């Protein structure tokens, strides 16, 4: 027998009240856990995916939409821009590197992105099998895409028009898989990469077989005499002055829009922040109510237990041991609540990810444990101590003789 076991015995003697208090506290802490996990992973991922991209240029529209569609591949593109405008921009002295993107098709919901080899270098992509595209209609699969659709190097598939939900199939031009990327832990995992030319030729009405066999552009823009379009451009600045001058220069030109990923993302987090704060507030209210619940449960049980406490004193327990006995009850309760809460939080995320196998949520992982979660445990213990302090003080002051003669 020891103090912890003694407190535990008293807790399980009232399973319903104990269970309810644990559950209430766990609920509050589970919400906090989910928020911490999602926020941390989103911020991490968002920063990682945007690394190396100073500016995104695309058609006029919402700058946030441009960033979401071109950097994170979650929203729809704002439209296309003229290849000539894009090429003109690449000659600007403030631009160090420019990566064109051509969007518009998908395969089973995974986006087909037309680009050049610089895009692979931007994320220092590594191949688990095969190599990068050389000819039109060669494609490279992101790791997760390959896992989910179960295709490998050498296999063919037919892309569909549209992003996400497809309208019609481009059955004239099957894609050939030339490589599969290693798991990257970033946006590439969910993409199908190919050349800009592939995207163009897929949408052409007539077929010129000579150009379909010619090698594609691996750097810069494809050379063509036709009127062609791209969806957006990822730009790296040559020097810090570019950050000031380039966006203003581009935005003043009528057809194009420039947006900075870091600026738009911090704006997005600011918008989301209101919602997050609201949920956080709700969680804190629940935790406070749980703390009150524990306080009331201990306080009420004390009335019935005054006699037990007096008997313990006659058996040799000191006042401090009775104090400890009650505080331990509160702390055991809240530690259990914290453990259950963290578990529920992770479980909730597992379910959330399971139900969304594509899109932004699917990139989250529930198997991540942060040191902030230890703080949750710490906060829970503080709640337990606070809630049990007054009942414990009452226990400390038990007047044995009066209690024992009262019956």
């Amino acid at each position, binding site marked *: 027998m020891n103090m912890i076991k003694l407190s535990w*015995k008293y807790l399980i003697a009232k399973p319903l009240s104990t269970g309810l208090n644990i559950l209430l506290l766990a609920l509050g802490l589970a919400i906090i856990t989910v928020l911490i996990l999602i926020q941390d992973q989103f911020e991490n991922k968002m920063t990682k995916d945007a690394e190396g991209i100073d500016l995104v240029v695309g058609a006029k529209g919402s700058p946030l939409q441009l960033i979401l569609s071109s950097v994170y591949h979650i929203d729809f593109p704002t439209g296309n821009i003229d290849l000539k405008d894009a090429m003109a921009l690449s000659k600007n002295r403030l631009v160090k590197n420019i990566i064109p993107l051509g969007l518009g098709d998908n395969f089973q919901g995974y986006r087909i992105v037309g680009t050049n080899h610089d895009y692979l270098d931007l994320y220092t992509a590594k191949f688990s099998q095969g190599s990068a595209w050389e000819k039109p209609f060669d494609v490279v699969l992101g790791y997760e895409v390959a896992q989910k659709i179960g295709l490998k190097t050498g296999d063919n598939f037919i892309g569909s028009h549209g992003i996400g939900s497809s309208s019609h199939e481009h059955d004239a031009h099957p894609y050939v898989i030339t490589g599969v990327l290693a798991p990257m832990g970033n946006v590439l995992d969910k993409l199908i990469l190919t050349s800009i030319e592939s995207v163009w030729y897929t949408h052409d009405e007539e077929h010129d077989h000579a150009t379909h066999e010619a090698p594609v552009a691996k750097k810069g823009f494809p050379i063509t005499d036709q009127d062609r379009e791209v969806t957006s451009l990822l730009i790296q600045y040559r020097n810090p002055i570019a950050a000031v001058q380039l966006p203003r220069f581009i935005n003043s030109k009528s057809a194009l829009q420039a947006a900075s990923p870091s600026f738009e993302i911090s704006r997005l987090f600011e918008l989301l922040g209101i919602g997050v704060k609201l949920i956080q507030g709700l969680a804190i209210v629940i935790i406070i109510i749980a703390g009150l619940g524990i306080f009331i449960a201990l306080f009420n049980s004390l009335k019935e237990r005054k006699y037990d406490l007096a008997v313990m004193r006659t058996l040799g327990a000191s006042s401090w041991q009775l104090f400890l006995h009650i505080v331990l009850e509160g702390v055991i309760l809240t530690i259990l609540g914290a453990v259950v809460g963290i578990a529920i939080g992770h479980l909730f995320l597992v379910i959330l990810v399971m139900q969304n196998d594509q899109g932004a949520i699917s990139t989250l992982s529930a198997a991540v444990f942060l040191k902030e979660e230890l703080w949750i445990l710490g906060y829970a213990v503080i709640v337990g101590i606070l809630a049990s302090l007054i009942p414990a003080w009452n226990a400390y002051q038990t007047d044995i*003789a009066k209690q024992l003669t009262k*019956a």
Partner: protein
Amino acid sequence: MILKANNIGFYYDPKQKFQIPDIHLGAGDQMLILGKSGSGKTTILNIIAGLLKPKSGNVEISGTDIYSLKGSQLDKFRGKNIGIIFQKPHILAPLTVEENLQLANFFVKENTQLIEPLLKELGIWDKRKARISTLSEGEAQRVSIARALVNRPKLILADEPTASLDDENAAAVVRLLQVQAKKYNAALIIVTHDQRVKDHISNQIIIGGQS
């Protein structure tokens, strides 16, 4: 001498002071304190048990003046040297029979190895894992006796131990207390208004007039 209670005076209301006769008991001695309800019997017991400080006089147990002990020292001393049996068993309900006895051992930080022999002697060894709510009145009272004895006390105090028992059980409980007190060479004081107990112990003091 196990117990020396000298010149004990006490009052709740200064107008109603009362003096308690000196009590001296040696190892193995037994004494009955008789008195009507409200005569202050339980107050005497509380004073001897170190639960209620008297207004005057002192209580010595095995040569220690218990009211000179401070705070938890007194609690430990009481746990170790005084076994108290109440009118109602007052066994801690969340614990099993055995755990109630283990708790008594734990609070004085001693393992007296008496749990098994005591429970066997009192015929409740089979009930050691039982919850208190499943015990009969008589069994519960025996558990409380076992708990009072498990720390090998020098002094056993019983407050109306037979009040809620029938004749047969009452006699059995008193006999049990006497036998166990003898066995562990402890002094025994039974406080009661129960006339059935009178014949068992000849050493008696009467409080608050003839009952």
